[in-house]
């Protein structure tokens, strides 16, 4: 069974469809959405419709900070983010808001924990960008959920952390398309990157594919029409920086 891991869609349906199509071509039969379905992007409704349909057919979906903000709680980040959250809220129908409100903070599949940001305190949206924080996250996942693998998003870059020979978490920058075996006797934390808003200088969408039977994880970069996504942001009157970000990938 192959599980597609998609995070930080950010109201970008073009990027989402491109990743889903690639995952299906690679044999994915299950889907997990790791949060931040909305925010930044100009097309939250098509993204929500797609995700709600996937969820109806068994996809696992967890909630991110932007999903929480779109329900009315204040968003993290600058005033641009606040305005965008208010804009997003106005686009959504009640059933979309209900769907977002119904999302759990975590989900489990086999020995893996799915979470948007940090399993140590899922609602605090901590960026896992340092090995020390990853060590705390791996410990929490093991203690609270008995999980030896954590799949998450939030940080818009792909990264794989593992416990090295001396027990300390080490960061590894994955090479796209190369399946890495995740041995069951080790603990792993994979940041699958962002579908809808890459921030590493490459505008292509990111997602990851986990082969559950063989326990192998591959990271992917998928080209999509990011110009159209940026044009939609400008047309909606959202901040110019959100559009430029998609074009630069940064």
């Amino acid at each position, binding site marked *: 069974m192959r599980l597609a891991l998609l995070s930080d869609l950010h109201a970008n349906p073009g990027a989402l469809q491109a990743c889903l199509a690639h995952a299906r071509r690679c044999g994915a039969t299950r889907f997990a959405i790791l949060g931040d379905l909305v925010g930044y992007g100009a097309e939250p409704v098509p993204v929500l419709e797609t995700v709600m349909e996937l969820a109806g057919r068994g996809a696992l979906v967890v909630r991110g900070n932007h999903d929480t903000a779109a329900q009315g709680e204040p968003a993290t980040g600058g005033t641009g983010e606040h305005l965008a959250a208010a804009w997003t809220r106005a686009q959504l129908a009640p059933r979309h808001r209900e769907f977002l409100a119904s999302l759990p903070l975590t989900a489990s599949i086999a020995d893996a924990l799915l979470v948007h940001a940090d399993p140590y305190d899922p609602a605090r949206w901590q960026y896992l960008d340092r090995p020390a924080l990853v060590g705390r996250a791996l410990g929490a996942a093991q203690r609270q959920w008995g999980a030896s693998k954590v799949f998450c998003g939030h940080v818009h870059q792909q990264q794989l952390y593992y416990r*090295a*020979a001396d027990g*300390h978490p*080490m960061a590894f920058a994955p*090479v796209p398309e*190369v399946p*890495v075996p995740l*041995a069951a006797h080790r603990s792993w934390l994979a940041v699958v990157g962002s579908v809808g808003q890459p921030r590493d200088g490459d505008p292509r969408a990111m997602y990851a594919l986990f082969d559950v039977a063989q326990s192998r994880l591959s990271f992917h970069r998928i080209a999509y029409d990011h110009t159209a996504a940026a044009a939609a942001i400008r047309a909606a009157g959202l901040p110019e920086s959100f559009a430029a970000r998609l074009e630069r990938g940064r």
Partner: protein
Amino acid sequence: MRLQEGSVIDGFVVGPRVHAGAMAEIYRVRYDGGRPDPGFPMMMKLPRMGGGEGAENLVGLEVEHQMLQALEGPHVPRFVAAGDMHRLPYLVMEYIEGRTLQQMLDEMSPLQRRPAAADIARWGRAIALAAHSLHRQNAVHLDLKPANVIFRADGSCVLLDFGLSWHAHYPDLLAADLRPAIGSPAWMAPEQVVGVRGDPRSDIFAIGVMLYELATGELPFGAPATPGGLRQRLWMDPSPPRALNPQVPPWLQEIVLHCLESTAANRPPSAAHLAFDLGNPQQVEVGARGLRTRRTSFSSQFRRWIRAAGLHYEPSPLPAERIDEVPIVMVAVPHRDTSDAVLYGLRQATRRSLGIRPGARLACVAVVDPDPQAEEAAVHRYHSERLRQWCRGIDLHDRQVSFHVLQSDDVAGALLTYAEANQVSLIVIGAATHGLALRRFIPTVTARVAAEAPCSVLLVKDAPPFALLRQAAAEAA
């Protein structure tokens, strides 16, 4: 735990035990139930689980599993299967028939006579080519030693035991912030001693230690058992091989000591460069390093010891990237029906192709017709001198250059064979879009080289106005 011969594990019938080492035991195996073997003999490797080193051996097996699945080519045993790490960890892989360098060394020692330099160069070249094949796949062995190098009957070399290896595409399971250096003390490179993993030049250092052993019967840095003893190689020069065995020719000592330089940047920049030197001893530029017969003086060793205390190593880029930065560039220099413009264009293209990094090397090649009337050495001298003169216009910035005159009536074939045998990274060749005699002949050579080359080919056109003017003049005349 010793496996019973004839017992069956996960569909493999256990055969005789062929090796029992400190880390692992090795058994020959075949498929159960009369299933035919995969086209090669197989062996099963089981880690030793007793004592305190069980966990470490298990990680080694995990690393080797990762490596064997990722690597390909004739210099690595083929992977067959792996056992469950929780239940019964093992690896099944190709059993290589041949003799390890360790076996060869063991047979030599009582005789007290060292092998001929030409034999050492041949074996060393085979090992370097095997290492290069690994480095091109983004991997570094990091535990090359005589027991892990095996020669098939055809003289080619296969590398064994990837338990300490490193691959740029996979997390390094052996990485750690604080731990003693891992590796085999006698062959370990200085940067490994301070914890750097992933530099292909560490393998070149290990090959240098093996060449030293072959040439002198001794280990250049002994087999230290303490961290202090290991650190000696950060600053200490070994005795020159010629001090221990006067039969060692200067070119071999030059190559061996080049590999054993304590700073990785001072070693041959890639295993292909090393193989090139070992395959072309007459082209090795012998310097003071090759001629020395005494050890470095105490005072200069002492200065280096001071410096080693603050030793700093640059982080290593991916092996394949590093190899691309230090290409072996081969330029085919025409020797007739040519013009100054063509030769100038070739020089310009060659200079650019060498890139900005030190370490790239240039091989100037001319293919000449075999002439039964002429004395071979004279032909060789004449064309080598022509190549040298052509090359004088290129600012080489101390990069190595060599000159090769190949006698063959098949120009393209000779160029291709040369490029293949020497792991050339780039062929620079004139596209020959001008001239009268050339139009019929050279384009077919160029086209064949471009189509069949094992590497990239740079086709060099000379500036058209000059060529056209000359052509018009020739036609008028």
